[in-house]
């Protein structure tokens, strides 16, 4: 068999060991720096922002405020983009927001079956599993089995709504406020709002789980 027949049509041979991604990325960065297209300090700054400033604690503040402030909750459900911006959370991958509220009858789950769309302004960067093929494939067709992998079992009869993020709208789940939290402050409640509860694969933590 000639060299050509060994190759796939897309130009490389899958029997070759894949290039180490660390080396590949390093080569690309050094090329782009040499070309004057990328400043490595800008990359450091991006990483710093998502490691320390923009993450799921932002979303937890939004949800805890909605749990304690009925007026804010109404605003959030009516115009999530504006209500969230009022707390200072704006920008990339959060330009257009919608809140979906869990109730006694409805449980919401968010996915992006086509790529990895995710509300960065309130949740930060998505976890590996959210971007993974099995999650994206299965949560729309068999959400119960997906929730079970997260240890989440819903009461019988509760309807599951799955929100597939196919546009630039970004969805954030408002979990139900846990029992036994009457009189808790917003700051205390924030601790119960896990990232996974705002994606919808888990419920909010109970007071004993913090």
């Amino acid at each position, binding site marked *: 068999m000639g060299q050509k027949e060994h190759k796939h049509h897309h130009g490389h041979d899958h029997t070759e060991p894949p290039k180490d*991604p660390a080396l590949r990325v390093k080569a690309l960065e050094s090329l782009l720096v040499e070309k004057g*297209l990328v400043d490595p300090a800008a990359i450091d700054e*991006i990483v710093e922002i998502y490691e320390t400033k923009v993450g799921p604690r932002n979303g937890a503040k939004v949800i805890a405020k909605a749990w304690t402030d009925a007026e804010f909750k109404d605003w959030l459900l009516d115009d999530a983009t504006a209500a969230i911006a009022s707390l200072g959370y704006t920008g990339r991958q959060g330009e257009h927001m919608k809140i979906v509220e869990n109730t006694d009858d409805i449980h919401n789950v968010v996915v992006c079956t086509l*790529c990895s769309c995710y509300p960065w302004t309130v949740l930060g960067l998505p976890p590996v599993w959210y971007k993974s093929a099995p999650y994206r494939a299965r949560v729309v067709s068999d959400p119960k089995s997906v929730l079970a992998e997260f240890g989440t079992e819903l009461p019988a009869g509760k309807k599951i709504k799955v929100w597939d*993020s196919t546009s630039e709208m970004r969805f954030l789940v408002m979990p139900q406020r846990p029992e036994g939290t009457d009189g808790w402050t917003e700051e205390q409640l924030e601790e119960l709002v896990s990232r996974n509860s705002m994606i919808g694969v888990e419920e909010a933590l109970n007071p004993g789980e913090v």
Partner: protein
Amino acid sequence: MNGPHDLGGMHGLGPINPEAEKEEPLFHAEWEKRALGLTLTTGFLGQWNIDISRHARERQHPIDYLSNSYYENWMAGVEKLLVETGLATQEEIETGKMQQPVPQDIQDKRVGPDQVAAILDKGGPCDFPTDQSQTFQIGDRVRVKMMNPTGHTRAPRYVRGHVGEIVEYFGSFIYPDENSKGNKVADHLYNVKFDGKDIWGPDGDVEIHVDLWRPYLEKM
């Protein structure tokens, strides 16, 4: 395109095996930080938009797309875009060494660390007016057109040909199928509700909501 990225309903991919939230690091290797940063900083050069970028990742061979980690897919997309826009050659990417410089006006768009926070804070809203008529109203029953476009689209395969109900109108938003070709046009965007049983059969015990643009839909 009917690519490997369009995953809704695919079988055989195995368990998700999620890491516990409290134990999961934000990055799993140092190179992932650089991959994130390179994706964003090259995007800031303004030579492509988000749909062109998504389409670059989707156009990988399905074997590559499905065997790569997500940041590897991002890198594959950036490399493809750099070559297609003429900012780098394949050989330069393989070697990491510059052979020819890029025009100064593109270098001038390089973003420095002091500009990053403002750019991320500002984001890029994608709603703007269209001349198209709104066509559909909340409560309308609509069918997703049976179609198999070879270019970029945000109508997932699993809803094509199926009937749903318009439950929300979001306004007019940049239309990905055209934006991915560099044409900045907007069209009306709706949230459409589907009964999982219509899509998956009797076991489809789920209500699915998908955002769909006017050109994807036809009234029942």
